[in-house]
Each structure stands twice: as structure tokens, then as C-alpha cells.
């Protein structure tokens, strides 16, 4: 391998060739010597295969030519990268495309070279590429395109383009965005489900098939005292009720729990929840866990209880009231019967007797009239007296049915008259205090208070064994009040229940018809009974 080198050696060591035998070496000689040595090295290196590229210089530039394929590593890189790579002429004709780009389009590489890139772009992508060609520079430009596959389906892609002026070519790296878009959609979906989870009113938990909590909503965290994620569901949520502790393996296999009421122990509190649970499946239909939801119904339960209690109270009240009304109805019937009996008795005993005597007197008068005018005149006088008695009886009966005084002279005078008559009848002392002016009540309201007085005095006469009674009628800006007090034996609760209840209920009904109220009580600080009836005034009272 030294043959070429020997030729240089000869030239270098032959003084005759320089024409300056024995003379000292000049700088030109030294340069020549150096160059020889360099050539010698170059040739030696070439022969021994130690160089694989040369620089060829011209006046304008230097160019490097390689003996071995220096682009091979780049080619391997481009051919094997995940992105598509292609080289375009400035007219958009594909000069080169890598395998990945061909794969994106589902065509062969050989089918791409020589064709226009626009054939494989969406209309929008083509427009962008058209705009790009005249403007692309040595600075990289990025834009999105739609790639049209052989079957016509468009796939989203990102193109990154750069111009090489020397070769008048555009180099483009194309990234398939399908997976990125899918990823974005998944992220958006995840964000949505995360948002739903956080805002849900119900407690929502996603557990794996072993029962470990993997995700928990905000509300789910409120229902426990530790961070649930990563812990076993049963260790975090102390549920008492059917099917607990939850069997996650069975739930994952398809068992479902639907809104079953459970008690959840949270620290020292107990919360009633509706529990639902069942398997969760992925897009492929594979079970990957169990979804547990708990609805806190404590408030609802509390409201239900309140409602139930109110309902029960109302029902009891209705029963009580119905009983009262039934008693009242019976009492009213009894009162009506008593009144009928009283009227019949009065008509029979009082007016009937008088009328019989009158009839006899008139018959006698008929007989004696022609014979004895004196006796006739006497008989006529007796008959006249009897008629007067009948008239008085009739007035008394009518007055009992409806106090005439009330209609003629008003409540104040009617009360006074009745109290006076009762005193005469019973002998019990009565003090009565009534205002000088007529109280502002309607006729029916006045009648209601009058009946209260009647009933109260009847009760006093029947049961109280009182020595004196005080009756007072008073009024203020809003109401008129009648008070009847006696100094009798007093009214026990038992008495109210047994004896006077119907009478009291009747009085109360009369005043309540006009929005009024009635109290029966023992007199404060002394014996006896106090009845107070108040009716709101419907008209403004007289100043």
C-alpha cells in the first residue's frame, strides 16, 4: 500500500528536480514539502479507507461530497418517526413522502410521489396550504389541515412547514391529531363528569370492585369524617340497614340496590339516607367498579314527622270537635223539647184552664143574659178579667220565646228586665251594671249575649247555691263584654265536663258565631263562678 507514496517520496528527495542542488530550502520549498506530505497523507488515508468525504472548492463555494451515505441516519429517522414527513415542490407536487404519511392516508408511498398534495387535503386544508406556498419562509409555520384518507374520511392533522430556498422545496412534518382530539374529548368529558360529581346534591362515590373508594363527590365528603378516596368504603361509611356491609363483588356482577333507606352514622350523628348502588361499565361494556349514591333525607324525614304530628293533632281535634258538636246537637234537641214541653205546659196549665173557665162563663152568660142583666154584667166582667189573664199569659210565653224587650229597648234594658224577673223568681240578690248608652251590637249579637245571661242565671239557680250574683256589661273600642259572677259553690273542671258542658258549649257556639269567645272560670281569690263572654264590635262604638 505504499506505491503512490513512493512517487511523492521520489519527487521530494530528488535535488535535481528543483535545479538548486545543495542550496538551502526556501519557504516555497517548505510549502511544497508540506503539501506533498498532505497529499501523501490524503492518498494514504483514502487507500486505507479512513476518509469518506471530500471538499470540492470552486471560486464561489465549497461543496461536500460523501463517499458513504451520510443521509442514511436522517433517512432512517424520517422513515421511522411517528409523524408524516413530505417534501413538496413550490407547485405543491409531492417529491418525497415517508411511510407514516402514506399510512395516514391509507395509500402506498409510491402512489404519492408526483401527485399534488391538494388531492389529499380537505377544502379548508387546501386553502391554507395554497396561502402557505407563496408566504412560507425559512421560519417554521404551523397550521391545521384535514387529511383525506382513501375511503374519504377526513382526519385532523397539524402541519409544520419550512422552506428550503436552495432546493426550492417545502418540507412538511404532519402530526395526526386524531388521538389528541380524542384525548381532548376525553379530558372534556372527564371535566364534565367531574363537574357533575362536584355539584351533585346527592353523595356520589365510584369504588373499584374491591370496594375501595376511587372518586367521591363534595357531598360524599360531607357525609364522612375522613378523606374517603383510597380507603375501603365500609371503613369510611358506617351504614345500618338491609344489605350492609355492601357486597361490592356482587354489586360488580350486576346486583342493584335502589333507594333503600339506611341509617348512616357520621361521628356522633345519625343521618337517614336513601342508598343506591350498582355496577359502572366503561365504553366497552366492561365493569370497572361500583357506583354508590346516597341521598340525605334527614330533612325530609323531619318534615314528614312534623307533618304527621300536625295531621294527628288535627285528626284528634276533629274528633273532639265532632264529639262536641254531637253533644251540642243533642243538647239543642233536648232544649227544643224542653221548650216545647214548657210551652205546652204553660198553654195547658195556664191558658187552657183559663179558657175552660172563660168558656163556662160565656155559656152561663148566654143562659142568664135574657133573665138577669145584673148577673150577666157580672159574668161579662169575670170573662173580661179572664181575657186579660190570657193576654198576660200569651205575652209571657212569647217573651220567653223571644225577649220582646230586646227588640224594643235594646240589650241594656233587656238584661235589666231579665235580671229583675229572675230576682223576683229566685229571690237571689243581683247587682247589675250596664252602660248608659246602647252597646254597638247587631240584634243577633245582642241576642247571643242575652242567651248567655239566661243560661248562666239558669245554671246559678240550678247548681250554684249562690246568695248573690253580679252582672256587668261593658265595652271598649274593640268589643262588648258581659260578665256574670256568683258567690256560689264554684265550678270544678269535673262539673264543667259533666253538668254544664252542653250549656257552656252552647253559649260558646253562640258567641263564636260572631267571632267572639267565652271563658268559664272559678272566681279569683273567692268562691263562685265567673262567666265572661266577649263579642268584637262590628261597628265603631259610640263616642
Amino acid at each position, binding site marked *: 500500500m505504499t506505491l503512490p507514496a513512493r512517487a511523492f517520496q521520489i519527487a521530494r528527495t530528488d535535488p535535481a528536480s528543483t535545479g538548486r542542488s545543495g542550496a538551502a530550502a526556501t519557504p516555497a520549498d517548505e510549502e511544497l514539502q508540506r503539501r506533498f506530505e*498532505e497529499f501523501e*497523507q*490524503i492518498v*494514504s*488515508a*483514502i487507500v*486505507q479507507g*479512513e*476518509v*469518506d*468525504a*471530500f*471538499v470540492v*472548492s470552486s471560486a464561489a*463555494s*465549497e*461543496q*461536500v461530497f*460523501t*463517499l*458513504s451515505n*451520510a*443521509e442514511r*441516519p*436522517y433517512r432512517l429517522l424520517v422513515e421511522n418517526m411517528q409523524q408524516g414527513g413530505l417534501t413538496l415542490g413550490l407547485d405543491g407536487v409531492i417529491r418525497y413522502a415517508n411511510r407514516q404519511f402514506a399510512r395516514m392516508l391509507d395509500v402506498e408511498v409510491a402512489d404519492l410521489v408526483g401527485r399534488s398534495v391538494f388531492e389529499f387535503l380537505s377544502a379548508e386544508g387546501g386553502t391554507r396550504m395554497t396561502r402557505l406556498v407563496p408566504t412560507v419562509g425559512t421560519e417554521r409555520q404551523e397550521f391545521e389541515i384535514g387529511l383525506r384518507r382513501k375511503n374519504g374520511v377526513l382526519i385532523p392533522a397539524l402541519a409544520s412547514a419550512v422552506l428550503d430556498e436552495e432546493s426550492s422545496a417545502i418540507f412538511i412534518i404532519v402530526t395526526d391529531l386524531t388521538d389528541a382530539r380524542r384525548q381532548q374529548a376525553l379530558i372534556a368529558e372527564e371535566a364534565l363528569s367531574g363537574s357533575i360529581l362536584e355539584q351533585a346534591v346527592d353523595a356520589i362515590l365510584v369504588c373499584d370492585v374491591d370496594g375501595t373508594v376511587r372518586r367521591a363527590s363534595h357531598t360524599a365528603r360531607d357525609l364522612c369524617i375522613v378523606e374517603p378516596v383510597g380507603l375501603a368504603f365500609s371503613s369510611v361509611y358506617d351504614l345500618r340497614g338491609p344489605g350492609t356491609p355492601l357486597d361490592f363483588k356482587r354489586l360488580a356482577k350486576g346486583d342493584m340496590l335502589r333507594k333503600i333507606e339506611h341509617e348512616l352514622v357520621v361521628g356522633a350523628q345519625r343521618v337517614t339516607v336513601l342508598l343506591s348502588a350498582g355496577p359502572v361499565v366503561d365504553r366497552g361494556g366492561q365493569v370497572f367498579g361500583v357506583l354508590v349514591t346516597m341521598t340525605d333525607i334527614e330533612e325530609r324525614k323531619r318534615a314528614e314527622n312534623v307533618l304527621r304530628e300536625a295531621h294527628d293533632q288535627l285528626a284528634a281535634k276533629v274528633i273532639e270537635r265532632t264529639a262536641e258538636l254531637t253533644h251540642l246537637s243533642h243538647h239543642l234537641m233536648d232544649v227544643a223539647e224542653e221548650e216545647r214541653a214548657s210551652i205546652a205546659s204553660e198553654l195547658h196549665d195556664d191558658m187552657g184552664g183559663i179558657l175552660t173557665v172563660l168558656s163556662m162563663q160565656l155559656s152561663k152568660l148566654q143562659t142568664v143574659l135574657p133573665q138577669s142583666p145584673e148577673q150577666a154584667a157580672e159574668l161579662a166582667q169575670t170573662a173580661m178579667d179572664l181575657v186579660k189573664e190570657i193576654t198576660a199569659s200569651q205575652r209571657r210565653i212569647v217573651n220567653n220565646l223571644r225577649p220582646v224587650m230586646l227588640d224594643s229597648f235594646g240589650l241594656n234594658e233587656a238584661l235589666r228586665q231579665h235580671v229583675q224577673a229572675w230576682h223576683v223568681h229566685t229571690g237571689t240578690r243581683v247587682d247589675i251594671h250596664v252602660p248608659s248608652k246602647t252597646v254597638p251590637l247587631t240584634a243577633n249579637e245582642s241576642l247571643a249575649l242575652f242567651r248567655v245571661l239566661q243560661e248562666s242565671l239558669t245554671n246559678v239557680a240550678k247548681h250554684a247555691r249562690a246568695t248573690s250574683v253580679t252582672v256587668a256589661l261593658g265595652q271598649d273600642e274593640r268589643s262588648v263584654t258581659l260578665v256574670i259572677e256568683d258567690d256560689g259553690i264554684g265550678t270544678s273542671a269535673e262539673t264543667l265536663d259533666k253538668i254544664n258542658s252542653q250549656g257552656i258549649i252552647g253559649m260558646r257556639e253562640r258567641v263564636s258565631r260572631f267571632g267572639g269567645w267565652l271563658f268559664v272560670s272559678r272566681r279569683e281569690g273567692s268562691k263562685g263562678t265567673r262567666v265572661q263572654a266577649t263579642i268584637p264590635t262590628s261597628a265603631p262604638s259610640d263616642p
Partner: protein
Amino acid sequence: MIAGTDLTDSTNTSGAAQWALRLYVAGQTPRSLRAAENLKRICDEHLAGQYSIEIVDLLVNPRLAKEDQIVAIPTLVRKLPNPMRKIIGDLSNTEKALVGLQLTRAKE
């Protein structure tokens, strides 16, 4: 690829590398890669702590060939110490490389 790559290992007390070497390569041709490997090995063995290597890729910038009148690639240029010397080839012959760098005498 590695234009102007500077592989300096100067731990001498003066702080400056006593040996300034420049290796001209042509991208990633096998000989260029081998020359870079061999040079690093030789320097580590014989010039530890006192050299700097600049690698010039002529595929990236062919004009740089002019400065040192490079013809064949790879070529190693000893810029320092003076005088400037060139060793052409991939430096796989260590003895020849050491002689070229004047680190040892060539065997007669």
C-alpha cells in the same frame, strides 16, 4: 449536526487548554463518527486536562473548509501548539495519530 461542538477538558493550572484541536467532519458519516470517538479517546489518554476539541460539520457549513484548506474528511487540525498540523483520516491508527500530533516519535 455538531458544528462548532466544543469538547474542552482543560484542568491545567493556567486555566487555558494547551492543545487546541479542530476536527472537520461531514455529518454522521461512519468515518466522521469514528474519528470523533478516536480523538476523544486519544486525548483522554495522552492529553488529559490540557486539551480542547472543536468539531466542525462541513455538511452544515461547507465554507468553513476554506480556512484550513480541508480536502478530505475527516481531518484533524492541531491549532495549538504551533506549528499547525493536519492528520487526515479517522484516527483509527493511534500510533499514526500520535505521530501526527507529535506526541510521540514514529517508529523507524
